[in-house]
């Protein structure tokens, strides 16, 4: 049943939120520290485990895959509900930050790609 997949996803999400919230309290910082990231790690681990045990039937998987196909549409809806008028003054910041940060990452690719080659 597809709902099993959705339920698995919901469990990972909630546990992730809980861990993130807990870290927020421990480190006395406002907000949720990495809850989404923890939930993603949980889902990857669970997916690996269930696949190994052959417990993950395609139907269950479909329940999770539906939501992953919804993520771009959800991001589009989120973009449409942003305070864009206020952000327009920061348009140049967006452009400069994006181009510079990305270029630095591009430049480092050949250097990091060498790491394994040296070892081999």
């Amino acid at each position, binding site marked *: 049943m597809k709902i099993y997949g959705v339920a698995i996803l919901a469990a990972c999400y909630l546990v992730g939120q809980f861990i993130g919230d807990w870290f927020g309290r421990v480190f006395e910082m406002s907000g949720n520290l990495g809850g989404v990231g923890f939930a993603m790690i949980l889902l990857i681990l669970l997916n690996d485990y269930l696949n190994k045990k052959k417990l993950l039937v395609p139907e269950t998987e479909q329940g999770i895959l539906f939501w992953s196909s919804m993520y771009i549409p959800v991001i*589009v809806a989120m973009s449409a509900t942003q305070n864009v008028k206020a952000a327009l003054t920061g348009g140049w910041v967006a452009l400069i930050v994006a181009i510079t940060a990305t270029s630095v990452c591009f430049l480092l690719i050949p250097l990091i790609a060498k790491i394994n080659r040296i070892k081999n």
Partner: protein
Amino acid sequence: MQNIINILDKNGLIFAFLVVGVIMYLSFLIGKKVTNNKIPAAAIAISFGLFIAYFGKGEKGIASIPAFSGMALLGGSMLRDFSIVSTAMGASFSEIKKAGLAGVISIVLGIVIAFFVGGVIAYFMGFTDAKSLTTIGAGACTFIVGPVTGAAVGASSEVIAISIAIGVIAISIAIGVIKSVFVTIATPIIASKIQLNNPHTAMVYGGMLSTTSGVSAGLAATDMRLVPYGALTATFSTGMGCLLCPSILYYIVQQFI
């Protein structure tokens, strides 16, 4: 007319499905016919979203118009985080082992470098509070990590919104979208210069650039066979960004500010 508006008001979320579906369709059409698939439809659709947000009356973008109020539910933090978590299904730890040490380093370094380069530039351009700097730095990772981080550290909370009176989260999305488009266009041009012609480099490339949509589209334009390798590490990198930006990296920013 009033009847139609009443029905739309009452069924906000359902109407939002229709609106977003139409936006996605138009974006795919524009991507295909106008840009010849050179710019990812996802980036066009998100830009489309930011564009219509401009026609809203206030802080909530298009959702400030009652008929479109469902957009705030569909694009709210709950469904957003839920659907982002589900994308981890495309990743697996046994697969990532193949990327080796270089792949793992690129996943972490791609986030840390984009975050700090973005944050430092934002600092010199007039942003001075830790929450805004963290949100903008996270936006330099991907258009997902930005808003997730912004919501987690509370950059959109009203106090902050009033005190700096600027849509930092919207800026972080814009940064992520520009990055995605830039990666897509630049990849085929500089592929030979960075020796992007084998699975190993493709994995490092995906980890360093993090943006799954940009990486997939960029690799598709360079060499179709490399797409799965780059997409895998990019997915991991996005997850890593959602983990590190609102926690350790936010903490480090707070120490400096």
